Structure formats: C-alpha cells, structure tokens
C-alpha cells in the first residue's frame, strides 16, 4: 500500500467524528463525504443506524489512538529511569494507576440516581471503589515522596 493510500483513510476515520450526528439524513451525510452504502440511501432509519455505529467506532478508534501513543511515550520515558529509582518508580506509577479514582467518582455519582430509583448497590460499589482508589493514590504518592526525599548526594 502506498504511503498516500494508507494515510487518507486514517484521516477520514479520525477527524470528523465531532461533526457527525445520528439524526443527519442520508443526503446530508453524502454531502459531508460519508460513505453510506448505496442500497441504504434514502432509508432514514438505516442511515441513522449506520451513522451511529460509525460514530461509536470513531470514538473507539480515537481512544485507541490515544492509548497506543501514550504507550510509546511511556516506553520512551521509563526506559530512561535509572535502576536506582526503580522502587519509587513502581510506587509512583502505582499511585498514578489510582486514576481509577476518576472513574470511581463518576460511578459513585451515578450511584445515587440508582439509589433513589431502584437499589443502593451501585452507590455501595461506588463508595468502596472511591475508598480503595483513594488509599491507592494518597498512600502511593506519600510513600513515594518519603522514599525520594531520602536519596541524597554526598555533601
């Protein structure tokens, strides 16, 4: 595959997701350069379904792109960290993995919607998740700081 041929579909998948909407009709979509299957043109339901599916796929591709690029950044930085600091690196990166705290907070938030309507299980799970993740984050960063402040040069 030529370089050009490889790049073009990538760009088309990656960028226009923000402009799309499930309610756009077939003709509209075609004007925006969307590839609606020929047999589905004019059938609004099918077009909407198609656009919705491709929007979901786009979100996934965007997220996946972020993931892959971040893996490379991580690899480049972390190979440069000396063995001297590998323990603080582990506890520090461990604390970063407590970023699930962000996810926990959203889950705890949606919990109370469920609590009022159906059951409290979601909020119990959310509460525990926030608790666990906070221990991970606070404990991790603090113990890393404690370790790192011990590393001193000869005076």
């Amino acid at each position: 595959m030529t370089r050009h041929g490889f790049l073009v579909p990538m760009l088309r998948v990656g960028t226009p997701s923000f402009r799309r909407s499930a309610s756009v009709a077939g003709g509209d979509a075609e004007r925006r350069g969307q590839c609606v299957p020929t047999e589905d043109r004019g059938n609004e339901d099918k077009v909407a379904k198609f656009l919705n599916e491709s929007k979901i796929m786009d979100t996934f591709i965007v997220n996946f792109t972020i993931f892959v690029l971040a893996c490379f950044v991580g690899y480049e930085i972390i190979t440069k960290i000396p063995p001297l600091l590998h323990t603080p690196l582990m506890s520090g990166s461990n604390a970063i993995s407590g970023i699930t705290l962000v996810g926990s907070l959203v889950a705890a938030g949606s919990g109370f919607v469920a609590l009022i309507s159906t059951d409290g299980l979601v909020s119990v799970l959310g509460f525990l998740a926030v608790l666990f993740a906070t221990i991970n984050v606070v404990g991790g960063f603090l113990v890393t700081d404690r370790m790192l402040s011990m590393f001193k040069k000869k005076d």
Partner: protein
Amino acid sequence: MDYLININPAYLNLAYVLAAVLFIIGLKGLCRPRTAVRGNILNATGMLIAVLATVPIMLREGYGPGKPLVSGFSTIGLVVAAVLIGSVIGVFFALKIRMTSMPQMVALLNGFGGGASVLVAGAEQLVKKKDLLEGNTVELNVSIAILASGLIGAVTFWGSLVAFAKLEEYKSFKKPFFYPGLKTINALLGIIAIVLFVWGVMHPESTAIYWALVLLASVLGLTLVNPIGGADMPVVIALLNSYSGLAAASTGFVLGNSVLIIAGALVGASGVILTQIMCKAMNRSMTNVLFGTMGPSASAPSADDVYGGKVKSTTADEVAMMLDGARRVVIVPGYGMAVAQAQHAVSELAEYLESKGVEVDFAVHPVAGRMPGHMNVLLAEADVPYDKLREMDEVNPTFSQTDVAIVIGANDVVNPVARTDPNSPIAGMPILDVDKARTVVIIKRSLSPGFAGIPNPLFAADNTLMYFSDGKKAILDLLTALKE
C-alpha cells in the same frame, strides 16, 4: 452549584489534558534523583486536577434537571466520606511502613487499585443494565471494556494479595504451592474466562455474567501467583503493576475518559519495562518465571562436594585487620541485609572506613531484594549517598582492583556457577564478579543455599572467608573491632 454543573465539558477535557501532561513531565522528573521529588509532586498535582475536574461530571450524574436536589448533596457527602476515610488509611500506611517492607506496601496498594477497577466496572454494569431496561442502547465497546476491567482488576487484586502474603512470609504461602495438573487447571480457567467474556458481550444486560467472570478471575489470580516463589516476586509485582495500569486504561475505555487511558498506558508501559529488566537480570524468560519451577537440576553437585573441608571461617578481629590495610572496599547487599535490618549498621561501617581514607562503594544487583531497586531505597534510608550505589555493569570491572568485597545477605547474585555451569538453574544470569576481588568476606548465618537451591562454590574459594553471624550483629562487631 448550578455553575459547577453547567460548566462547559470542553474545559473539563482541557483539565484532563493538563493532568496527563503533568503525569508525563512528572515521570520524566523521575529520571534523576535531583528532580525526582519534584516529579512526584507534579504527578500528585496532575491527579488532584483530574479528580477536581471530575467533580462537575459526578454532580451532573447525581444531580441535574429533573433529579431531586437531595441526591446531589448526598452524592457529595458519600464521596467526601470515602475520600476522607481512604486518605486517612493511605496516610497511615505511607508513614508507618518500614522501608524493608516496601515491596509488601506496593503489592497491597496495587491490589487496591485493581479492586477499585472491579468495583467501578461493577457499578457501571448495573447502570448499563438500567439503561437497557429503559430501552436505551449500549455501545458494544462499553460492554467489552466493562468486562475487561472486571477481569484484569480481579486478577490484579487477588494476585497482589497473594504476592503480599508471600512477601510477608505468611506460613501457608511461604512454599511455592505447586501441584501436578496446575497448568491444565489454569489453562481450563483461562478458557472458561474467555467463554464467559464472549457470553457477557453477547448479553450486555446480565450482571450475573459479570460477577461470574470476576469470581473466575479471582480464582485465576490466586492460582497464577501462588506457585511463584518469593524471590521471583519482583517480576510478579512489576507485572501486576502493569496490569493495574491496563485495568485503569480499560476503565478509561468504559467511560470514554482520555486521562484514564493515558495514565493507564503510562503505568502499563512502566510495569512491562520493569518486568523485562528483571527477567533479563535473571536470564530467564517471563514464561519461565511465571510458569516454570525453579530448583536444583539432577546433575548439580551436592553441597558436600562443593564445600567439603574447603570453607574457611573468620572472625570480626581478622576482618577488621584486613580492612585496616585495604584501599578499596565494595559492599554487596542482598535480601538478607533487609531481613536482618542491617542497613544502618552497614552505612555506619562505610562511613567509618571512608573517614579512614578507604574508598567504599556499594554494588547493587538488579534483582537483589524483593522488588526492583529495593536495596537502593534501604541504603538511601540509612543515609548512604546515592552516588555510592553502583549498578552491576559499572562496578563489575572494578572488582579486580578491590581489596575486600563484603557480601551481606546475598547468594545467588554472586554465584560464579552462573558463568561456568551451563546446566545450572542460574546459568547465564549476569552476576556481580566479587570472586575477582583480592579477598571476599561473606556475612551469612550458615551455608544454606539461596532461592535457586544450589551450593555456591564462591563460599569455598581460596580468597573467600565466611563470617558466620547475623548480618546486623556481624557489622556492629566489626565496627567495634575496627575502632579498638
């Protein structure tokens, strides 16, 4: 509060980008000891920003148009309570833990991270079920990501707890627990997990399948880590660390949240790299560490053949006399130093020798101790300046100009068999070449073998003296003898 809820999501996403940038700059700071403290603070700041940016999202979920006001307030109350309790527990752990127990601490914190992923995904599964009952559609990738978070999170949680128990040397976890057919059972569990996973993706409304998968992953976490021996824990912890990163990233895919994805990828990369470094330093493949058994091969010489009549024992006075005439001394610490809590005594010895004009260095093997970099942290705690802590490649060429090498609590990492016997279980493992020093003093309680279970011909070498004693007592006696 209305202002917070109606805040433009674009600002929140920008805050997430800022948090991700801070994580990257912070990790970059960890490349040098001088900038490392600041790097860690930048990481923590990034986390704070990410959490604060999430508060409006959380409020919008719990309190919004058409939702009762009380729900928003009780959401905040619940979350604040959890954050406060979690912080107190975290601070308590971080301040109380002894540096020798750092591997246990990391294992435990890692477990909490994995556990949080399981719980978040569990909550999201219930929300998703409710959505489906209300007739909304749920995206396929959300279903996949929820199941992946649950699976990886549960393996991480239980695996970390087993690693913790092994590092604490709880009795029932001390021996690598291995029984015939374990591999078959694990393979079977793995296949069932895949089947459950696919089934769960096809039935996104089923909460039962999610929890069944979590249960199975929990069993898998136990059976995967339990057969692995204590000295291989550095690899296991590093690997579980990368899992907890992947669990965070897959939670990020569930919630469509970029900062979770980026942070998860960074942590995942860090864990994978550390795992690689550890495996390389043992000349073993990851498969061998995780699924192989470590033990003496049938052809290995017995301890009697190796040691018989050739081991010379020494005393504090004799070693002190030798150190008096030495110009260069290298100290080689191992896990035994941590067990004996001898790091402060060792540091005092090094300081005393330096004050007498002796050149003192520390030689740190990459897998010495129970986690990557364990020895460095212990010695830094005992006020050894970090420029004295030498890596293996840096220190090995200097052993031939070393008068005395003092090995304290290390065994397999100084075993010359790794260079000479291609059939030994540690064949090809890079070792510290202490046998090239003029005199080698080994501080050890007995001639018992290390983790590899093989005798060490270094103990019987012509230039080796065995100083049989508890590590801490040996160094303190040596100091007294030196000062007399």
